């Protein structure tokens, strides 16, 4: 029994953030060179709080979440830095230790719920399996638990649906089932990697509601990964904006949407047609394309696309890598422009453009 529950008394008395990631680096050795998918990322999430991670495709969001779950199996992955879950260090921990935390203390839901569930086993079967790895209960009890979980995520008549196969569910129901599976062991950390990207708006709204409700009920720490600023605005307390494997900006949702300070974040806001404002004539795209993670530009990774780099004295944007420094109130921004100047630019130049 003690093997099944790694939650030792010391660990649960741990205070501070439930998930703490510090200076995380995940590099992949490939034939073309080293892919620096995540390069010095730090963040923390407390129980009951939601962290949103946003960024473009290939910015390292999924690689980060997989690192936390210890799911990087390929031999060419090099992971360094620190990942602490409930005070327990995971980087460098024995495989079995991390494995036992998976599903039990930390769980994950994925983007495409059809391919993420095994097509040959029933939904109930898959939930039962998740539950029984970490809980020494009879099959019958586990099945009752599975039905209960399906009920809680809003699957109608769960008693009949428990024996259905994933392909017999609709997209929204599958994602609900996936959530039921993830939450079956009552994990304190839930990582959702693009949980609604494959779903329709009306179903997306249902799933976001569900995640929010369940978080209140379970009081868990939630990390939600997405490229949709709207989704994080709905759910997140804190937001990390990633660019090319690094943190561009990090702050509370209010800070980020109220007064974003990184030129990349401005660019993102300008690129999106705004649903909540009168329609504009033109969108304001960011020029160029995201960099290759094998040849990340020297200095600030965003510099080839940044329209403000000329305002930084000297060649610092091309030579020095900016650190994510506190710009007041825990709002961190990785940009060489002085905070006051960024505020000025936002107020005078960017905000009016977006309105």
């Amino acid at each position: 029994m003690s093997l099944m529950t790694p939650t030792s008394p010391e660990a649960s008395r741990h205070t501070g953030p439930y998930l703490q990631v510090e200076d995380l680096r995940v590099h992949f050795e490939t034939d073309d060179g080293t892919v620096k998918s995540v390069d010095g990322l730090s963040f923390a999430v407390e129980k009951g709080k939601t962290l949103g991670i946003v960024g473009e495709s290939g910015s390292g969001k999924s690689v980060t979440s997989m690192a936390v779950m210890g799911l990087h199996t390929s031999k060419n992955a090099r992971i360094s830095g620190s990942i602490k879950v409930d005070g327990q260090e995971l980087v460098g921990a024995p495989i079995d230790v991390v494995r036992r935390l998976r599903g039990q203390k930390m769980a994950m839901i994925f983007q495409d719920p059809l391919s993420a569930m095994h097509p040959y086993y029933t939904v109930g079967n898959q939930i039962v399996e998740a539950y029984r790895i970490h809980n020494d209960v009879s099959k019958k009890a586990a099945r009752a638990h599975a039905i209960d979980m399906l009920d809680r995520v809003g699957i109608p008549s769960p008693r009949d649906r428990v024996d259905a196969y994933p392909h017999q569910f609709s997209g929204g129901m599958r994602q609900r089932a996936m959530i039921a599976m993830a939450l079956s062991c009552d994990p304190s950390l839930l990582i959702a990697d693009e949980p609604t990207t494959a779903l329709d708006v009306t179903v997306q709204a249902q799933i976001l509601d569900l995640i929010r409700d369940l978080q209140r009920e379970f009081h868990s720490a939630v990390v939600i990964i997405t490229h949709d600023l709207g989704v994080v605005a709905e759910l997140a307390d804190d937001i990390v904006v990633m660019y090319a494997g690094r943190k561009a900006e990090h702050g509370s949702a209010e800070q980020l949407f109220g007064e974003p300070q990184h030129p990349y974040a401005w660019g993102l806001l300008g690129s999106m047609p705004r649903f909540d404002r009168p329609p504009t004539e033109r969108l304001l795209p960011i020029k160029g394309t995201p960099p290759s993670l094998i040849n990340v530009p020297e200095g600030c990774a965003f510099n080839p696309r940044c329209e403000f780099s000329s305002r930084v004295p000297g060649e610092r944007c091309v030579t020095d890598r900016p650190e994510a420094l506190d710009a007041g109130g825990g709002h961190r921004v990785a940009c060489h422009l002085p905070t006051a100047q960024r505020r000025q630019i936002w107020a005078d130049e960017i905000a009016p453009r977006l309105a």
Partner: protein
Amino acid sequence: MILYIIRRLLAAVGLVVVLSMITFAIFYLMPRLAGASPETLATRYVGRSSTGATVEQRAESLGFYDPVPVQYWNWLKGVLFGTDVSTGADTVRCPAPCLGYSFKTQDPVLPEILDRLPVSFSLAIGAAVIWLVLGVSIGVLSALKRGSFFDRAAMTLALAGVSLPIFWTGLLALSIFSYQLGWTPPGGSYTPFSESPLDWAFALLLPWVTLALLFSAQYARLTRAGMLETMSEDYIRTARAKGLPERTVVAKHGLRGALTPIVTIFGLDFGLLIGSAVLTESVFGLPGLGALAVDSTRNNDLPMVLGVVLLVAVFVAVANLVVDLLYAVIDPRVRTR
């Protein structure tokens, strides 16, 4: 479901009919077209010192004067309803399914075939067990350790295994283990399972292993490819995210997903093997169906050849049907919508 099985069975019957027609054509129509008269054909089935009259009589009793389609129809009637056969003096009733009488020995075909079936079956089943276990486990290991020394060695061997001719490996094995070391019985010995399971297995050990080597190579490659594909599926990541031990992930989630193509090929291989392990049977001197087919072909013993073909076709058809039903067991998407 029932309807489905019936349809599959009908398809199988069709296959059998077509195969028997082709065989019939090869043995009857082709010589006729090439200009052989019924008498020349009948000469093969009488003694060397026979008169023209006996040849004619023989040709008559074999039905060679009928047009070929009629001959085929008569044969088919025998299979379906049984037939009366005259053996010179009196007529004998040959009940359905009557595969006729051997032209050579005058013995009924069916008992002869049924007599040999267990040998072929024993050979196939033992070899199949070995090659499945060996092939699948090597394939899985190779896939999991892709690029490792084991993987490269196994795949090189598999490549060699596929291309090695069985009479070579068979004879080699026979000469080393049987004749030089004396560990296994010499070729030509076969003990029915019912008499002594131990002797049965012992005698078949070498043929099994020889045959299995050939097939396991193919199965290892197939399994490896399938496993590589499934192990990169999203649901494998999910299984790991649940905290399942890697062993369970591989066996329960990975292998199950990779099973479909293996089962498909297996059904076909097994069905065919029953009547076509010719080389193995002849190298090891086993009195199986393959050997029978070869002998009868050499003797122009048409009813015997037709009988073997028919039986093998039935086996292939049944094996395919079983495979299709297995699909439904393996993949719920086939059975539920």
